[in-house]
């Protein structure tokens, strides 16, 4: 045991002290925040210059109703199309045909430089509105505008969970949108961790084998101790990273976010959290409220991170044992690519199942996907935000950790033989023989 500790300590120290680890650990949450803020930022910076479009409207109905915006100005032009097209100092020319109301295809855009999808969509939707309005006018119905306005409905649905109100409080309004996003982030995070940290174990085994450090090490520790030490060492790095992120997220959620939000919003959020008010009564968007409530609910976040850690460690131990086995049986990363396919396939499959889970978190596919150890870490983390019975999580964890033991045993068998094999890459058949030896 003592030797495993020494190996774990070396693996841990070597990785945690690396600049790349420190940078990703600190930058990753910022990067994720940045990604979320990116659309807003892009909107802010994308509105650069104003573009002027000359409009030649032969129908006479469209041009007066076009509304210029921040990034585009419609300027009616009375000359001929050829004259307009000859002007180089404008963005382009919009030509609208005489019978555009009857034949909407009579719209053409000539541009002096490349156009953009958003710009074209703006133009099309404006013209569509105009044509719709013109067509409606033809029916000659009084007060049609009011009728149309009255017809338009915007539905906002609030979902209640009957089974989750067992703790005595009122039914809790949940937002599927927030659960979806949370599940997506957690599932993706696990996927990334399994692949990245799994390959880290594999690469490091290949390096040890290539540099022949392994030959020296095995005179002091057994190959199995060596393998477990490496896996646990890398696992502790992953746990450290997640823990730091957890603290950062909880810290931001409990301090920074409430400080940034207007007071009345936070009061509403707190009231909803305390069960004094339902989301429906609050005068806010349900998704928004729900998101805020999740992001600032520290105990909820902590629970989530505890599940994440448990599945991360279990899933990592399960897969990294196989990664280590593959690393031990080859001489180079190139050789490893083919052999690791059977490992990466189930991880990718798990992500696909997780995507299906978002449609129905309680389907039997979702259930079995979150119990079978090959897919359970990712699928279960995608399901948890939707609120599932704790016993299911328990079963998944028990199955996962039991399989870890079996997987380590099998991988240890391959590893023990593989580290002394140099030269030809082994076939699956040979790997099977090593396991049976």
């Amino acid at each position, binding site marked *: 045991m003592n030797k495993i500790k020494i190996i774990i300590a070396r693996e841990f120290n*070597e990785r945690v002290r690396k600049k790349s680890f420190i940078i990703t650990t600190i930058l990753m949450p910022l990067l994720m925040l940045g990604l979320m803020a990116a659309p807003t930022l892009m909107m802010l910076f994308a509105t650069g210059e104003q573009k002027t479009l000359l409009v030649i409207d032969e129908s006479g109905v469209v041009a007066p109703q076009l509304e210029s915006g921040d990034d585009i100005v419609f300027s009616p032009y009375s000359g001929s199309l050829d004259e307009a097209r000859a002007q180089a100092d404008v963005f382009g020319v919009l030509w609208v045909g005489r019978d555009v109301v009857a034949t909407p295809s009579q719209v053409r855009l000539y541009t002096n430089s490349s156009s953009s999808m958003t710009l074209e969509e703006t133009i099309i939707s404006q013209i569509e509105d105009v044509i719709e309005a013109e067509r409606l006018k033809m029916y000659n119905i009084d007060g049609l505008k009011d009728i149309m306005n009255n017809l338009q409905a915007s539905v906002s649905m609030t979902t209640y969970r009957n089974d989750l109100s067992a703790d005595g409080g009122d039914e809790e309004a949940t937002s599927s949108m927030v659960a979806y996003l949370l599940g997506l982030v957690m599932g993706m995070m696990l996927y990334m961790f399994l692949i990245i940290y799994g390959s880290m174990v594999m690469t490091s085994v290949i390096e040890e084998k290539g*540099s022949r*450090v392994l030959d*020296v*090490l095995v*005179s002091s520790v057994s190959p199995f101790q060596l393998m477990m030490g490496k896996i646990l060492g890398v696992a502790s790095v992953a746990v450290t990273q997640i823990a730091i992120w957890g603290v950062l997220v909880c810290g931001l959620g409990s301090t920074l976010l409430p400080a940034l939000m207007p007071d009345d919003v936070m009061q509403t959020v707190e009231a909803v959290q305390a069960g004094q008010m339902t989301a429906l009564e609050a005068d806010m968007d349900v998704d928004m409220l729900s998101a805020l409530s999740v992001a600032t609910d520290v105990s909820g976040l902590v629970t989530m991170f505890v599940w994440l850690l448990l599945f991360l460690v279990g899933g990592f131990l399960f897969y990294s044992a196989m990664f280590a086995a593959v690393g031990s049986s080859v001489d180079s990363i190139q050789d490893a690519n083919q052999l690791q396919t059977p490992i990466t396939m189930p991880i990718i499959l798990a992500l696909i199942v997780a995507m299906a889970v978002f449609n129905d978190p309680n389907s039997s596919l979702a259930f079995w996907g979150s119990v079978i150890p090959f897919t359970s870490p990712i699928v279960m983390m995608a399901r948890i935000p939707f609120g599932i019975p704790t016993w299911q999580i328990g079963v998944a964890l028990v199955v996962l950790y039991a399989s870890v033991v079996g997987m380590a045993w099998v991988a240890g068998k391959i590893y023990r033989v593989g580290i002394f094999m140099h030269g030809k890459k082994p076939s699956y058949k040979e790997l099977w023989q090593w396991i049976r*030896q």
Partner: protein
Amino acid sequence: MELLKIENITKRYSAHTALDDVSLSIPRGSIYGLLGPNGAGKTTLIRVINRITLPDAGRVIFDGKEISDQDIYHIGYLPEERGLYKKMKVGEQAIFFARLKGLSRREAIIRLKQWFVRLGIESWWDRKVEDLSKGMAQKVQFITTVLHEPKLLIFDEPFSGFDPINANLLKQEILRLRDKGATVIFSTHNMSSVEEICDHITLINKSRNILSGSVDEVRHRFGENVFEVTFRGEPATFEQAVSPMAEIIEAGEVADTPYLNARIRLDDNASVRECIGAANESVELRSFREVIPSMNDIFIRAVEGKL
């Protein structure tokens, strides 16, 4: 009294037998040469001693008891293919290996500092291994092998990669460790170094132990009763004198001297004394010595089956 006894070890792999009923015993305080061509089973035998692989049959007795995992702390092994973590600093890495051999961090640092001073490499402590030359890394590797003062040291081709000066330094260190009580197993192809430092040898070929004994005893055993005689006088007289008891294999002049040289093979029942007497009567004898085969000759003859 032997430190290590190998009793009827057999190790089979799916395709071949690596060790076939190999037995040998290694006297305490000796330097024991483990010889054999590539693929003979030397490395497998060393791995069995190190408990890296377990034998299918047979026992290893270490220090009077059947070997156990605890005995690993009393063995130091320098494999032929050896390496260090390239990205790790020398000192830190040496501490890591020392701790795996059961030393405390404090003890490891104290001993390492002494060794680094001995070999004049104190300034390397904070350098990364990737910045060292191959020979430099070998020195560090040697220190990590002997640092925990093991009773048994196993060196697999220890001198490969060293320049003659450092190889000599290393040889002196190995002899010093032996004088301090360590027993050394020395696996090599370099027969001249075997003659220089080994007391005993075992020759393994095709998974079997085909020859064991002390170096002197083995060399004499392989002697073919051949003697080299240097003398001054008539070659014909000499030939006539020794021909009843010996056959002359070759003869010639010793360049730039008035002496002649002859190699003779003594008949099986002839006495050396009589032969010297007869030669002495006939010519002016200058030297008469037995030609002992070199370990290199013995190795080749043994492996090629001309025993």
